[in-house]
């Protein structure tokens, strides 16, 4: 008889559907083929002019209908596309999902194109006064909805028939992992048998790029875009802004098996710890990230020796990669030098609010396919970071368990532990 409870007596949470979109393409098949052949999705920016910009490359998703329509429509389409793939794979009803929705998505703002067009549709007075006057005469709700933080989730809830009040969340670069964690926790508390967790980010606007540039967070290696994201390399100089989405259908193992679903993996543990040091830098001793990793292991009921592979946060910023190495080597000790640790971001860039969900999707595929995607652009190793980053070429390997890290600006750190088998 299958045991449906974990080491703490909680329902075991299975994954029964996975969906993903990145600059490498739509869907698991295209993404996995590209990812395992070491292909980069980073390319020159064409969505808007790059005059005056220090960074002129990104991992934007330029091939969807909404790609040029602004952050809110694109984020919705990314979320919808990934969720559709995940729900279809799970075999559940894609218009009557019947469980709660957890959406990680970027904060919304009135798009500059809308701002310009509202402003220039009138000529009386100026500034905010004019915008407000034009705004209150609008007859349609379309623009309004792009400015409401809950609207994307509301539309997704309509589309998929999820249950109850959908939760839209942000924990910066950890958001996607937090969305999964919230789904896991809801199932463990017995509030539901299934949950739909999505991370989606289509917010790579000019202003977003400029904001990160002003924080000196972005790579400026514009000349060879596919070489710009180089986690753990000595000459890494920042992350590459990117878009994407990942979606998981989470179910209690018991409910999944009862309806004959295929179990794609187990969401075994989640851990988090907030940093109180600084808005963009982590505590010098790495203690919050270390605590987050340890909390995830403890929650999963696994010892550090039972993790086969680490799907790193690996942003390619000088700060993150150094700190991530420090925390991993503190937790895993000497073993870290021989344990595979790779960064998907070397190929897809940093998909921000989506990253935790996209990388969870890839972690699950890593276990299912017994193939570890490489860290590409690893031509100039940082001697201070001794890791087996699975350099440049995929590796065939049995992977029974994965730790996936997500560390965010604002100090929000979330780690997920996934396993191939229930026990």
């Amino acid at each position: 008889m299958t045991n449906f409870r974990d080491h703490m007596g909680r329902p075991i949470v299975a994954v029964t559907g996975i969906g993903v979109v990145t600059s490498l393409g739509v869907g698991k098949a295209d993404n996995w083929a590209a990812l395992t052949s070491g292909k980069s999705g980073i390319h020159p920016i064409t969505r808007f002019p790059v005059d005056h910009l220090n960074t002129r490359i990104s991992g934007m998703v330029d091939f969807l209908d909404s790609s040029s329509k602004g952050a809110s429509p694109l984020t919705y389409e990314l979320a919808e596309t990934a969720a559709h793939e995940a729900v279809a794979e799970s075999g559940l009803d894609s218009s009557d999902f019947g469980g709660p929705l957890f959406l990680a998505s970027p904060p919304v703002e009135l798009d500059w194109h809308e701002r310009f067009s509202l402003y220039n549709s009138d000529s009386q007075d100026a500034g905010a006064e004019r915008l407000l006057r034009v705004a209150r005469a609008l007859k349609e709700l379309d623009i309004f909805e792009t400015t409401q933080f809950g609207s994307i989730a509301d539309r997704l809830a309509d589309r998929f028939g999820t249950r109850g009040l959908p939760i839209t969340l942000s924990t910066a670069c950890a958001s996607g992992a937090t969305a999964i964690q919230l789904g896991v926790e809801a199932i463990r508390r017995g509030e539901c048998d299934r949950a739909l967790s999505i991370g989606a980010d289509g917010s790579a606007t000019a202003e977003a790029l400029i904001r990160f540039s002003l924080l000196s967070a972005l790579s400026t290696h514009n000349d060879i875009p596919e070489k710009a994201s180089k986690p753990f390399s000595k000459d890494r100089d920042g992350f590459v802004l990117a878009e994407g989405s990942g979606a998981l259908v989470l179910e209690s193992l018991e409910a999944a098996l009862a309806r004959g679903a295929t179990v794609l993996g187990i969401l075994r543990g989640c851990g988090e710890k907030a940093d109180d040091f600084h808005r963009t830098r982590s505590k010098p001793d790495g203690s919050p990230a270390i605590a987050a990793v340890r909390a995830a292991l403890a929650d999963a009921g696994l010892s550090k020796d039972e993790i086969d592979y680490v799907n790193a946060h690996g942003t390619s910023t000088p700060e993150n990669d150094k700190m991530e190495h420090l925390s991993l080597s503190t937790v895993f000790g000497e073993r870290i030098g021989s344990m595979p640790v790779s960064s998907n971001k070397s190929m897809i860039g940093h998909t921000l609010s989506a990253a935790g969900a996209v990388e969870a999707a890839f972690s699950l595929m890593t276990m299912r396919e017994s193939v570890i995607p490489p860290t590409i652009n690893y031509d100039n190793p940082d001697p201070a970071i001794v890791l087996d980053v699975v350099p440049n070429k995929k590796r065939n390997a049995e992977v029974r368990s994965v730790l996936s890290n997500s560390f965010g600006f604002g100090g929000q750190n979330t780690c997920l532990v996934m396993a191939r088998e229930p026990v």
Partner: protein
Amino acid sequence: MSSPRDVVITGIGLVSSLGEGPDAHWQKLAQPGLQPVLETARFAPYTVHPLPEIDWNLQIAKRGDQRQMETWQRLGTYAAGLALDDAGIKGNDELCTTMDMVVAAGGGERDEAVDAAILAASESRNDRDVLLNEKLTTELRPTLFLAQLSNLLAGNISIVHKVTGSSRTFMGEEGAGVSAVETAAARIRSGQSTHVLVGGAFQTEHSDMLLGYELAGYLHRGPWKPVWQRQGAAGGGVVSGSGGAFLVLEQREHAVSRGRRIYAELGPVVSGRARRSRGELDAEIAGLLIRAALPNGKLLAMSGASGAHAATSAEKTALDANPAIAARGFSTLTGHMKEAQFPFAVALAALAVDRKAAYPVFDAAAEKPFEGIPASVLATAIGYHQFEGMALVKSA
């Protein structure tokens, strides 16, 4: 019957146009005929309830920290500090590092001067995308991005108050506040958390915050009126207010073991998403009232009604249909505080339970008196546009 895993409220941090702290709010709101604090000129034709004068140093000791936040983050960090102080948690390392946090956040306090200059320049240029790059790369303060970013209210609470157990930020107007309280309570009931900081803030004195309502024509215009009396007046019925509300929710056993004063118990927290375009709002509100497990007998309700015509009218009809309910539309006196609205409603409900007295009517024409001791008080937030929630607050 009380249980060790009940959720109890042990700390309240409030800021609104009426002042700061639970005592100041109780004293003001208990006065019959209290007049609202209104700012009618600065954003005309809109009226707002402005922030009171605040000495930020009292909760955010470092000027450097204050400078890293726009007003909304500062306000939330301040209100969170008030709640932590009130619960005897502030400065206690052991309690802060194990404390979980769920913040309901908006964000987007943009630089109005930079935006206005870009818009003005756009009138004479067709290459607006290039204009944007030119201006934003040179005029934006580098630190502004983080100072207005949604998840950085929680980030600042971690930095300033050292709350570091876990940190989640929920977005989505009133619904975010509802989900934040609901999730925090569920964590405590299931034993996942022993004490959680939950709440939100809203700083309305910024044109983009008004625009967030007015793109759908939600704001009330013309002379101010109480929240229940705006149907038919110019505009959409919402008068917004700046404010913040944070609660310390705690497992009963945890609160008792450290000898803390308990304001009230937080009973059922229920939420929903009516598909309003299909006319589901009335049924949704009725369903929430049932799920909130209202006690027998008369009941005080702290209503977070925004004034938005359709939602407010639906809520009023539902509350009026139950003769036992005496509602208080607190937006009449504070304005609508968006993400903070539901935590604020729960806080006011807890205060009435704790003080064993009801609030007088805030609007004599639309509300009825409540005599006696309110052993339970309902808190509501029916979103001005979407999402609904309620909670029942009970004597501890």
